[in-house]
């Protein structure tokens, strides 16, 4: 699949934003952070920027962004529609939660409840996003539970890293230590999920073949000897993207190291070894690396996914 920048940005950014919301709700519910306006402004500011920026960027690749509102209508059948509805609905509890925290200085009680509802909506939204991909039988790499697991764990992981940074910066030690454990745990979990995902997509499982795509499988090996068009067309541009093997092999370690291992190490460092401003710096670096790693991860998520239509253009199996 063509790794479109807007979609990569959208999924990573909104994932991180929703992940942040989850952790802010948890912190509020557990009473680990007071309704500190500055902290709230920073946290919700970053969180909503990521969510809204992501959602906006997702409309950039639309042919008709001005009609995007129509995408709410098909929630009964379409995961994309559900994502749209869910993301908007999530704004209600999240917005109220943020308001009461930042404006009214209240993040416990009902506010915390709103936060937890918002957190649930956030996870639901991330889930719907994951289902947009996971539902596609045409892309076996995505059409499995690891896709959903990946989104569900990567968003909160990313969110934990960011909120951790803020908690550290604002000196909420208790919150920071919880988030540190969560981030470390989620980094491990996310890495395991990603490794499982990669194992799965390279596991040689085959859904469809050139033979089944053409109905000619009974005649033996099927190869394309003439394309319908000499230059690329939409299908090839959108779905025929091929990432070179060696490319993928190089990028995957980058994703693993930058996205998971280095953040893990840096965060672990702040547990006992470094503190103070150094810790904040380390966590900021962890966030940056994590974001880069996840961008690469998401690029690979698209680039490595083979679409069934490529079977018509010379691919042997997907």
């Amino acid at each position, binding site marked *: *699949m063509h790794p479109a920048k807007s979609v990569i940005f959208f999924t990573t950014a909104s994932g991180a934003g929703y992940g942040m919301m989850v952790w802010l709700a948890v912190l509020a519910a557990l009473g680990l952070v007071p309704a500190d306006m500055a902290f709230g402004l920073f946290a919700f500011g970053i969180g909503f920027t990521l969510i809204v920026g992501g959602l906006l960027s997702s409309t950039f*690749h*639309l*042919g*008709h*962004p001005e*009609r*995007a509102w*129509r*995408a*709410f*209508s*098909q929630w*009964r*059948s*379409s*995961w*994309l*529609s559900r994502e*749209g509805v869910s993301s908007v609905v999530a704004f209600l509890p999240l917005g109220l939660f943020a308001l009461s925290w930042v404006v009214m200085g209240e993040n416990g009680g009902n506010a915390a409840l709103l936060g937890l509802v918002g957190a649930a909506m956030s996870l639901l939204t991330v889930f719907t996003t994951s289902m*947009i991909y996971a*539902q*596609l*039988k*045409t*892309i076996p790499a995505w059409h499995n539970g690891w896709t959903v697991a990946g989104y569900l764990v990567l968003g909160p992981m990313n969110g934990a890293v960011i909120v951790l940074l803020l908690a550290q910066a604002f000196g909420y030690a208790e919150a920071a230590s919880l988030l540190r454990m969560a981030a470390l745990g989620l980094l491990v979990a996310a890495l395991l999920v990603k490794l499982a995902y990669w194992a799965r997509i390279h596991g040689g499982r085959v*859904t*469809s073949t*050139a033979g*089944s*795509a*053409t*109905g*000619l499988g*009974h*005649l*033996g*090996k*099927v*190869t*394309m*000897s*003439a*394309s*319908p*068009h000499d*230059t*690329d*067309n*939409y*299908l090839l541009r*959108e*779905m025929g993207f091929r990432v070179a093997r060696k490319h993928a092999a190089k990028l995957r370690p980058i994703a693993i190291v930058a996205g998971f291992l280095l953040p893990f190490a840096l965060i672990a460092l702040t547990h006992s070894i470094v503190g103070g401003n150094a810790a904040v710096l380390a966590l900021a670096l962890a966030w940056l690396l994590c974001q880069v790693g996840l961008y690469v991860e998401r690029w690979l998520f698209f680039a490595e996914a083979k*679409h*069934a*239509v490529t079977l*018509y*253009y010379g691919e042997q199996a997907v």
Partner: protein
Amino acid sequence: MTCLPKNPTEKKLGLVIDLDICVGCHACAVNCKEWNTAGKSAPLTDYDPYGKKPDGVWFNRIHTYETDDGQGNGTTVHFPRSCLHCEDAPCVTVCPTGASYKRTEDGIVLVNEDICIGCKLCSWACPYGAREYDEAEGVMKKCTLCVDKIYNENLPETSRVPACVSTCPAGARSFGDLGDPDSEVSKLVAARGGVELMPEQGTKPVNRYLPPRPRKKGEEGKAPRMLNHSDDSADGAGLIARWVDKILS
């Protein structure tokens, strides 16, 4: 409604494509382009008509494949590819706007371009590459089964057929109601063992492909493997001698 029609559609209109006689001439593809460029989805934009990357929107594309059974039996098969008007059309259910829909009357899968937002998800959902995004217009387009031709009262009967079907010089394309087992296309499919493409994708395509017939290589026919020579003399001299006074019966 991008939910699929709940009950089977009244009709299941579709195409039957005979891979045994398709010569890969691209007539169906070009005639399709010609009809549809001023049809329901007008225009089928061409992006760089006289330049470096000639490309545009087509609803029908002709591939050529070679098969090889590893035992020296190879074939070349031409393969037209267009929308199969699936019963369980994933392109429809993924569509967030309702722009993609399947008609209850006849099962034709269409795009309402007036409300399509151009999210392209339907093209991701279609295993057959049957959806083509019009990059200039920002909307998805696809084979309409010539919905504006097959019922068109302004055309003579002989033209009320999908453009690709009536134009096919080899007669490799048929059209009709594949939901009716008594229809002629259904009989054609049954007699020729017509197949679905990628049944494993669960799309339940309506179109059928008739596989190439087993080739008659001579091993199976009535003809002997070789002729009996009437005479084995060098250079046929004996035969010629016999013909000298042979009177025809």
